[in-house]
Structures are given as structure tokens and as C-alpha cells.
């Protein structure tokens, strides 16, 4: 065994075990969601779970491959991977197959792959490599701008493909930037802007502007006024007003009808039980009917064929909620949190900046998917179709998450080797 090969002991077995648990549990959930008494054959290749099984085998093979290659490869070819995923994204415009109103798929035989999924690890690698370079100081505004550009490029292309959900995932990289030195107040401002944006959709922008003005006047009345403070406050109110008005404009004039509906349904302004709202209502019934302990595996009635075709992809959590109840759901959330925590600990213990940034990218992406996907099935987030990592049906997603994770496991394994070399 050469020095470059990871020793079995240096692989993080906890993460690897959790990965296996997730993938197998996911397969069972997919099986349950399309299960019917007349056709219980799990190896049926025409069914989702049959295909998923194949994808799991492919993913496992690829994961093993990643564990065996030299970890320097990822560092050396980080920009290369990034370039390839960008090219793949662009290729969809030329040879993309249209599926469900989105042209973000490339068809290979009877399988389709979605380059948007793979763009995540390409971006994570490129960002990690750029920020870990020599003489790179995140305090420099130019560094900030280039980092943002690395993230924004694939995001913009995916937005153009009409895949809002996948594009939003790239927002999770802001957590990485935060960890690497982006000031916290920027994130707070970001969240505040998001809250203002949601308010702009809920109430007339005029009322918000009046409200902001009132708050500003009250604020100025209470503090000791300096000229700077007055100008600053007025400037902020003007900026916020412009922002709120433009949100309203974009919502009314730029967004497409189905996106408006989804947002309206989420905000409770509109109950659309036929479209997006139907899925959410069914989802709530399914989860709600699970009760404390659930109906038992394959005993769920709500999930089967409810959300065609999303029930095995975006709404997979319903199966857990219905068949395993609160206990199962709680367990799932706890294990997922354990998983994230473990990965974060692993990221923090890296000595190499590249490894750490990559690790945080992974954690951020996984968290963002969890946040949106589970929130959506619980009716707390808009119905933007992004999968639940390792659980949802879908080859591209599973492959992409596997690659993302295993690269990090490989990087981490080498850290242990490095450590031993120092000893």
C-alpha cells in the first residue's frame, strides 16, 4: 500500500455508515411510495425503485472509485471539473430534452441526467480551490467578487433553464463564504431583505414603505441625531422602498404564472388545491395521518400515487411521515442533524484550507436541501422542487450527492494520513 492510498481506518466510518443507511432507507421509501399489492417485484426495472437500485449500484461503484484515486486529483483538476459542468449546463440549450416544462435534462438512452445536479460539486471544487490559493485574502473586495461570480455563473444558467429550485441551492454557498470571512451582518441583511421581499408579496408595497418611514421617524426621534445618522436612515428607507417596489414589479411582470401560484399558495393568499396546493394538502394529510407511530411500512394509503410524479422525488418525506409517524420523522431529522454535525466537525478538523472550504460547501448544500425539501412537505416553504439528498428518487441527484460526499470523505481520509506523516 502506497502512502497515497487511504488506509481503511482513516475513512470516517460514521459518515459512510449514515450514507448507507440513508440510501437504503430512501430506496425503501421509494418502494413504499409506488408499492401496489398486485406488483410487488422490487427488481422491476420499469419502476422507479428498480431504476433507483441500479443508480445506487452505480453510485456505490463511483464512490469506491473516488476513494481509490489520488486526492490531489481533485485539487489539480478543480477548475477542470467546474468547466466541464458549466459546458454540460450550456449543452442543455442545444441538446436538452424537455421534461415537465424544463429543458435542463440531457437524454442518454432511456435515462436522463440533469447537469444542474453536477454543477454543485463542480462549483464547490472551484470555489474551494480559488479561496485556498496563495495570497488570497477574503477581505479583499476583488476576491469577494470573484467568489460570487464562481457561484453566480452556474446559478444564472440554471435559472435560464427554468429550474428555479436547483438555482436557489447555490444560495447555500453564502454560508461557506460566511464561514470563510464574509461579515455576519451581510447575511443578516440578506435575511432581512428576504423577509422584506416576502412582506412585499403579502401586503401592498405602499403600506410597507409607510411603515418603514414611521419606524425611521420614530428611530430618529429617539436617538441623538447627527447629520450622518439622518442621511443614513433616509438612505436606507429609500433603498428599502425601491427594493420592495421592484419585488412587486418582478412578481407581477417577470415571474411566470405557475411560479406566482406557488408563491401565493405558500403565502396563503390563494388556495390552489388543483396545482401546487393540492400536493401540499395531500402532503399534510399524509404526514398528519401518520400519527405518533405511523401506519407501518407499506401500510400507508396516502402516499401511493398521490403526487404523481413527485411522490417519489420531492415529496418522499411524506412516506416517512405517514408510515413511521412522528417517531420516524423525529428520528430522521435527528440522524440528518447528526450527519450534518459530523460533516461540520470533519470540515473543521482539516488543516488544508481547500479541504475545509469544500467540506463546508457540502454541509451547506445538504442543509439547504433539507431546509427547503422538508419545509415544503410541511407546508412551511414554497413548493420548489428540489430533492431530499440520498432519499429522493432520481439518478442525477443521487450520483451528484454521492460524488460530493465521497470526494470529501476521500479528502478527509488523507488528512489522517498527513497527520500520521507528521508524527
Amino acid at each position, binding site marked *: 500500500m502506497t502512502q497515497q492510498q487511504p488506509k481503511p481506518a482513516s475513512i470516517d466510518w460514521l459518515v459512510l455508515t449514515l450514507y448507507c443507511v440513508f440510501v437504503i432507507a430512501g430506496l425503501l421509501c421509494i418502494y413504499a411510495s409506488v408499492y401496489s399489492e398486485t406488483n410487488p417485484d422490487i427488481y422491476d426495472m420499469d419502476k422507479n425503485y428498480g431504476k433507483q437500485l441500479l443508480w445506487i449500484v452505480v453510485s456505490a461503484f463511483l464512490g469506491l472509485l473516488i476513494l481509490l484515486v489520488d486526492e490531489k486529483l481533485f485539487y489539480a483538476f478543480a477548475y477542470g471539473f467546474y468547466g466541464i459542468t458549466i459546458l454540460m449546463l450550456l449543452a442543455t440549450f442545444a441538446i436538452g430534452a424537455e421534461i415537465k416544462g424544463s429543458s435542463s435534462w440531457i437524454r442518454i438512452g432511456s435515462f436522463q441526467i440533469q447537469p444542474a445536479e453536477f454543477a454543485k460539486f463542480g462549483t464547490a471544487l472551484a470555489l474551494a480551490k480559488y479561496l485556498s490559493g496563495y495570497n488570497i485574502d477574503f477581505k479583499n473586495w476583488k476576491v469577494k467578487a470573484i467568489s460570487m461570480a464562481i457561484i453566480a455563473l452556474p446559478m444564472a444558467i440554471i435559472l435560464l433553464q427554468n429550474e428555479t429550485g436547483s438555482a436557489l441551492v447555490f444560495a447555500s454557498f453564502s*454560508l461557506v463564504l*460566511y*464561514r470563510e470571512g464574509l461579515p*455576519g451582518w451581510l447575511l443578516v441583511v440578506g435575511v432581512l431583505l428576504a423577509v422584506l421581499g416576502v412582506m412585499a408579496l403579502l401586503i401592498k408595497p405602499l403600506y410597507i414603505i409607510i411603515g418603514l418611514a414611521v419606524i425611521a421617524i420614530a428611530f430618529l426621534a429617539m436617538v441623538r441625531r447627527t447629520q450622518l445618522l439622518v442621511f443614513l436612515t433616509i438612505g436606507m428607507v429609500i433603498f428599502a422602498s425601491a427594493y420592495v417596489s421592484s419585488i412587486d414589479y418582478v412578481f407581477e411582470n417577470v415571474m411566470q*404564472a*405557475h411560479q406566482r401560484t406557488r408563491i401565493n399558495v405558500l403565502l396563503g393568499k390563494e*388556495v390552489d*388545491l*388543483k*396545482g401546487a396546493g*393540492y400536493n401540499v*394538502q*395531500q402532503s*399534510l*394529510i399524509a*404526514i*398528519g*395521518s*401518520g*400519527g*405518533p407511530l405511523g*401506519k407501518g411500512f407499506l401500510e400507508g*394509503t*396516502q402516499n401511493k*400515487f*398521490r403526487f*404523481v410524479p413527485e411522490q417519489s422525488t420531492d415529496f418522499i418525506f411524506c412516506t416517512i*411521515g405517514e408510515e413511521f*409517524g*412522528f417517531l420516524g*420523522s*423525529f428520528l430522521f*431529522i*435527528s440522524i*440528518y*442533524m447528526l450527519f*450534518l*454535525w459530523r460533516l*461540520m466537525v470533519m470540515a*473543521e478538523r482539516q488543516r488544508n484550507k481547500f479541504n475545509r472550504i469544500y467540506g463546508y460547501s457540502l454541509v451547506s448544500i445538504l*442543509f439547504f436541501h*433539507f*431546509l427547503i425539501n*422538508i*419545509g415544503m412537505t*410541511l407546508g*412551511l416553504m414554497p413548493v420548489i422542487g428540489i430533492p431530499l439528498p440520498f432519499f429522493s428518487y432520481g439518478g442525477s441527484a443521487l450520483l451528484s450527492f454521492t460524488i460530493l460526499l465521497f470526494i470529501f470523505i476521500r479528502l478527509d481520509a488523507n488528512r489522517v494520513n498527513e497527520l500520521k506523516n507528521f508524527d
Partner: protein
Amino acid sequence: MESQIKQKILLGVFIFIAFVYVIRLLTLQIFDESYIRSAQNNVLQEQTIYPARGLLMDRNNDLLVYNDNIYDLFVTPEQVKNLDTNAFCEVIGITKQEFIDRFEKIKRQKGYAIYRPSVFEKQLTMATYARFQEMLFDFQGFDVVVRTDRKYKYKNAAHIMGYIGEVTEKMIENSNGYYRMGDFIGISGVERTYEKELGGVKGVRYVLVDSKSRAQGRYKDGEFDTVAVAGKKINLTIDQKLQELGEQLMQNKIGSVVAIEPSSGEILSMISSPTYDPNLFVGRDRGNHYMELLRDPSKPLFNRPIAAPYPPGSIFKVIMSLIGQQEQVLYPSTAYGCYGGFNSGGLHVGCHAHGSPLPLQGAIAVSCNAYFCHVYRTVVNNPKYRKVEDAYNKLYDHLASFGMGRKLGVDLYGEGTGFVPKATYYDKIYGRNHWQALTTISLGIGQGELGITPLQMANATALVANRGYYITPHIVKSIEGKKNPNPEYNVKHWSTVDTSYFPVVINGMEDVVNHGTAYIAKIPGIAICGKTGTAQNPHGKDHSIFFAFAPKDNPKIAIAVVVENAGFGATWAAPIASLMIEQYLTKKHDTRPYLVERMMKGNLTHKPILNDSTATKTSKH
């Protein structure tokens, strides 16, 4: 140090979100009352409530279209359990193979979902429905939904009312999920243009059913249910009695009639002949009937009054008289001699025998071809304009202000523009600056390339009757008792011809009926102003054309009649118009029974009359 704090903050955010989700799960799965019922294996089922389609009435509140119940059999595949297929097939009257095929077909339909009801059999007969109702509980997953289909009280006005049919896949896609397979939608006529008003809004009821598809109650006490909103009642502008008479007069003829109330632009009657019985588009055989009508060489589905362009023939002389005066090249006193027609160089346009020379009013009364060739020549070769092209463009603008060569904006689907050639059209044929009035002289007497739809003819008549303006013709008078909301139907569109030029022309039109070419149309006591047209055309015998309005002062009706390949305007078109004017103004048409009989018996379709009970069995010719 800072990064450690940041790590803690991030971890804190993660745990906070997880905590929120756990709380949400707690409420959903353990505390929320409304999901307790759902915990009994209930399934949310969506039931559509179909609204009644709006009724159609004529201007006098005479009911034209109403609704009739039909029974459609729906299947929710997921809920079909323990079905006795043999018994089921027997009740419905299909074989087992058909049953299997039917299911295969349903599965391929757009919007198919195993949990959603799909149409299994459309429009069950009453007998089948009754038998099915008795056995409903044996056939789990099947359900009969009551919908309404159209029923037409009269066989008239088929083209105006139009028909409804099932939505196509394309419409379903475009409707953003509102329409479902098997829904009805207006395909033509008023049913199409006023689909939004007539169609109403479908309602939805969400019901929880158990795994044996027994209803367990409403979902969340009907919080998400929507009520069906019935379609609105629409009053058409047509007069059913007038429409009926017109269609009888036009039977066995090919052509159109359009009658308009000049002061309002309301279409009193609009006939497209041959027509068809609107009830053919009702019921299970609507598709077959549609194909039959589509294949009929006389094109009964073609809406001639609004779409078919005809050369207007001599009625165009009325328009030219007005434009000539406006262009200051024609005065009431202007007289031209007629020597058996118009002669200029080698060009000859024939005319019939009449007194000569005549001033304007007399020339209209006898419809002198030579006179109006001169008028056209002076208009187009007007030295006031630098080029012939400019003079011609001016003429084109005048005609456009009469509503010719463009869509008027009637509220019916399929309106045509007609055709008035532009200067560029002649440039293409003759070359730029290589044509002038004499090259295009036939336009002056309403021949040549000119194509005017009957609706445009009637509209021009209304304009003359109004002494200078028209209101866009429309077919819907009121919706739910409120005037047609389209503001366009209230606007006076003034023509480019001054009101002062109309009286002499109208006097000429009066002479046409009193002692001119359309003497046959005269009705004692009613001052009718009209003009005949006998339009040459490449399809055979001349078209018989007449347009008129009455009474002369304060006109109540303007009408245009076109009978294809029927000969002189005075032979067919004028009597038909006269009878319809009489009917509308006096509410009866029995003063001239000989005329009524001749018109109704006239068969100009050049084919033997088949067993049509409404038509006379013997042909006159």
C-alpha cells in the same frame, strides 16, 4: 477564534431549523384535530361541480338555447375493486374486449391519474343511467356525473349561436389546468366569443373517502371547496321571428342576409345559407354530424355573412356617389350621357337602356354604368392630386372609413376582412405609375377585384341610413340584463364623407325602390331606400344583391342580401329584403303572399331537394 464562533452560529441555525420542523411535525401528527379523521386511512377525493351554461335569448327575451341534463360515467381507477366485469359490461352494453380497450385509452389521456376520475362512457342513455343507478354500489370506483348539454329551441341562427364541443388537448394545456378531458367549451359563434360569460366557473368539492370509497365527510369542513358559478344569461340582438322568416326565404339558396339596426349597430338578423340544425351538435353523435357537414360541398359550416367576400356590384355606386361629392368632382347636378355604356378609347363598359343624360339622383335610380364609370374616372384621375396613386389612396381611405377591406370587430369568431385592393396591389400588376382610372374602371361599378362581406355591406347601408356614421355591428345586446360592456359598441364611427352629401344619394335610393330597378321591393306606406346589385363573378351566374334601409327618416333597419348565382338583384335579393323589412317594421309579412311563395319555393342550389320536411317538395323550374 472568530471562525469557531461562526461554526457555533451555523450549528445553532441548523438546530433551530430542525427544532422548528419537529414542532411542526408535533402539531401535524399529534396535536392537530383536523387530521385525526385523516388518520382513518382516508383519501382526499376531488369532485367537480359543473355549472349550468348561460342561456341565450333573442332581443325580445324569446329563449333560444337552454340546457339539458346528460349523464357521464366516470371511473376512478384506484378505487375500482372487486368489479364484476361481466355484469358491468352488460349494463353498459359493451363487450369485455371493449372494456379493456377503454381502460387502455383512458390511461393514455393527458392529465390521467389513477386517483382522479376519468370519463369512461359519455352521455349515457336514460335507460342505461337508470339501470346503472340501481347497481351503483356494486360498481365501486364508478360514478355518474350529471352535466348539461345545449338544447336549441329553434332550428335557426346556427351560425350566430355556434356550438360547444369538447376541449382539445391544446386548450387543456393553455388553460393552466382549468379544463379537464371531456369538458365542454364554445367552439364557434357566440358560444366561443362569450365563453367566459356563458361558461361560468366550475366548482370543486373535496371529500374524504375511505379505502372502500365510501364518503366520510367533507375535507376540513369545506374550507377549500369552491361553489360553481352558473354562466351568465345573454340576450342576442337578433329578432327570432325575423331570423326565422329570413332563413325560410333563403332556403335552397346559397347566400347571406345581414340586417342591422342603424342607430345601435345591433344585428337584427344574420343568415348564412345553407344552414344547419344547431341540434345536430348536441349529444353523442355530434362528431359524426360535424364530419357530415364538413364534407358537404355546399359548405354549410362556412359563416358566409361575416367571412365571404363578394363583389358588391351596383350597390357600390351609392358609396362612389358619396365619395365623388366629398372629393368635389361630383355634384348633384353633374350629368353624363350614356350611349349604351361607357366608352373611352377601346374600352367599353355596357349599360342597359334608360333615359340619358341623367343627373346624380336619376343615375342612381336607374343604376347607370356609364355614369359611375365617369365618377370613378374623375375620382381617381383627380388633377387635385399629384399622382393617380395619391388619388387612389384617398379613395382607399374613404372606403376604409365605410368599414370596407378590414375587420369591423363584430363579436363573432371568424370575421373576414373582405378585399379592397391597395395602390401597391395595382403597382404589382401593372407596374408603378403604369395604371390609372381607366385601367381599373370596373372598380367604379363594384366589380373587379373588390370583395365586400355581407356584414360590411349591411354596415355601409347603416352608415348611409345614419347619414354618415356607423356603430360597430354586434350580436350580443346584453349580459345578465346589462348592456354589452364592450365600449366599442357605443362609439359612432364617422365616415370621411360629410353629412351634407347624403340626402341626394338617399333620394336616389328611394327612387330605386319607388320607380327604379327595385320596384318589386316597394311596400305601400313604408319609405324604403335601396340599391340593387347584379355582380358578375367567376363562379357562374351573377350574384343577386340588394341593400336597403327603411324607413327613410329615422331608419329602423338596414339590410344587405346576397343570393349567389341567382341573376338580377331585383329578382331575388330585393324581394327577400323587402319581406324582411316588412316583417321587422310591421311584425307581419302576409300582404304579398305571391312574393313569399315565390321566394320560399325558389330553388337555386341547382340540385334536387331531398327529403326535407321544411322545404317544399316540388321545384318550380
